[in-house]
């Protein structure tokens, strides 16, 4: 077990308490994110994991206040360095965004401007938030490009995004995010578009920079392997809600929610080649999030469904002090029939 990289007694950099995002659609309100709460400390990595449509990207956009106009953000409190991100004005938010809060997107090609050089785009961030002479911005850009492992940064600054490979572009995005020394990074699927070998290198880079600059990180991904290797804490999202939340150790070694258990069974594991056994899978599809949501949102796909699952509101409860889950069953009762190991004395 790796030593803990953050100090649990530090004050959180970001505290999200009871965040909801509702999107207006023709047939009513779509509850994209419901009752999400978490904290991130410096040097701590929180992973939001879930499948498409579970609300993980909306959560990150909400924190950056980049939601579409039709979306409404409500929260008891979103505290970042004393500001309530849910309530401050757009002008105040613009001062934090890209300055104190850094963001990395999935596809660096679509998030970069193709007609400006890399140098221009890196310097813009710095000049916008810090001002000062262009030469200072250029110096910082060169320093950071070297920091993220780009050889010959002076020459790269004059190039355009299309002249770089996917891995280099993502390094460039990371350098851009660091221009103003953010306290927290929000990385939305930063390695999904990359090769497996490049993925490992980019994750290693993020990790070392996080330690060096004392940043907290929210890493959003659907790749459970990435989550297991990067996360201190994990929040598993399903249909806009956090269904299980805890340390990576707890969530991966002792998953409690039936969805988490099912998701882990879906992963092909090492050494399955000879057996050609079938992978676990979760039947059914994600429910509609439009209109009033009652009961457990996972119930229709859950093999352990009971009558009580469709009633009222299911709250997060504790399996152990730092390990929460959203299910009416006791932790021991959520074992899926197919996951009982063959030959176990049951």
């Amino acid at each position: 077990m790796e030593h803990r990289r953050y100090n649990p007694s530090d004050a959180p950099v970001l505290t999200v308490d009871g965040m909801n995002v509702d999107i207006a659609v023709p047939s009513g309100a779509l509850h994209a994110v419901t009752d999400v709460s978490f904290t991130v400390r410096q040097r701590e990595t929180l992973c939001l994991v879930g499948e498409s449509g579970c609300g993980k990207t909306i959560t990150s956009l909400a924190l950056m206040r980049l939601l579409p106009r039709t979306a409404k953000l409500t929260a008891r409190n979103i505290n970042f360095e004393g500001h309530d991100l849910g309530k401050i004005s757009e002008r105040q938010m613009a001062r934090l965004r890209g300055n104190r809060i850094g963001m990395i997107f999935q596809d660096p090609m679509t998030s970069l401007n193709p007609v400006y050089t890399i140098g221009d785009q890196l310097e813009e961030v710095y000049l916008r938030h810090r001002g000062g002479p262009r030469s200072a911005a250029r110096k910082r850009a060169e320093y950071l490009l070297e920091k993220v492992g780009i050889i010959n940064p002076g020459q790269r600054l004059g190039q355009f995004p299309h002249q770089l490979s996917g891995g280099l572009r993502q390094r460039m995005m990371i350098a851009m995010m660091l221009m103003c020394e953010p306290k927290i990074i929000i990385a939305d699927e930063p390695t999904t578009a990359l090769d497996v070998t490049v993925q490992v290198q980019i994750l290693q880079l993020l990790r070392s920079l996080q330690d060096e600059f004392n940043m907290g990180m929210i890493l959003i991904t659907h790749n459970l392997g990435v989550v297991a290797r990067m996360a201190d804490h994990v929040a598993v999202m399903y249909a806009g809600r956090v269904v299980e939340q805890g340390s990576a150790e707890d969530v991966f070694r002792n998953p409690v929610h039936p969805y988490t258990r099912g998701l882990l069974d879906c992963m092909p594991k090492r050494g399955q080649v000879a057996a050609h056994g079938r992978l676990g899978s979760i039947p059914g599809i994600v429910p509609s999030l439009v209109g009033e949501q009652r009961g457990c949102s996972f119930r229709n796909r859950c093999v352990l469904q009971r009558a009580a699952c469709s009633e009222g509101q299911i709250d997060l409860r504790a399996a152990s002090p730092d390990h929460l889950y959203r299910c009416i069953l006791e932790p021991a009762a959520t074992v899926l029939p197919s996951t009982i190991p063959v030959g176990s004395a049951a």
Partner: protein
Amino acid sequence: MTAAVLSVAPAPQVSRSEPLALETRDLAKEFRVGRKWYSNGQPLRAVDGVSLSLRKGEVLAIVGESGCGKTTLSRLMLGLQQPSAGEIFVGGEPLTNVDRKVFSRRVQPVFQDPYSSLNPRKTIGEIIRDPLQIHKIGTSAQQTAEVEAIMERVGLARRLIHSYPSQLSGGQRQRVAIARALVIKPEIIICDEPTSALDVSVQAQILNLLQSLREQMNLTYLFISHDLSVVEYMADYVAVMYLGRIVEAGPAAEVLRAPRHPYTRALMSSILTADPGLGLPDLNLGRGFPDPLNPPNGCRFHPRCIEALDKCATVAPRPIMNGSGLIECHLHDTAAAD
């Protein structure tokens, strides 16, 4: 160019007397990059001397990073592009002698992105029926029956027959693509990253489906992927590609359990299993994919190889049959010399 002959041993359930379903001999594809009226451009050898074979009922996986030539190889095998050199044999017949239409009844593709590989203006029924109409198979009523049968087989509800692709989820669309490939009962399916656009739980459903279809219909798969944990689950044989060449190949259990080529080892260590606390692996791999327009001398992998010898920079390694597999690496020359 030396032929890299990969004669794969038959899988236990397959008899040796069956003809090879698919074979390539010294296959190469060269593109000209930057062609102008005054210049012929630079040559880019996307596929360079690839020889491989697979028997009926087997699954051969091709793995490698983007730009290694695996998609070009699949396009050659589908007859979508003409090889610059070498030959492809389907069921023992050379591809050049066979009409494209006849050939396409035997080899069918399933592409990566089910969002762009289905015509948005056709219904699911029309999409799946298309191959039957192109090949003029059966009467209209027979075609409808075929379409319904294959939809049931791949797990698509019959009511979806009049739906459009935009009304379907990613997993359902990939099922449509599989149904379209299977409706004319081909022998070989070429799957190019069939699950990389899908969620984990959907990926598991599609992989399970491909496995059961293979058993029921005795299909042969050429499976292209960069996800080694998926490959390990699917494949009988694995070929690892690097800059257009196969650098290691053999039975999946051997190549993936005990990789010998330094590149295969780096790929294997890049698999992130769901083990918390393990942290990130050390890849032992130099950074930067080389420029395919200007490939390194000697062994193409040597600039990134941590075990490179002096001669790796000058002498290109030759493919060596070693045990049940093939390897192209100077580190393993000595083993084969005796």
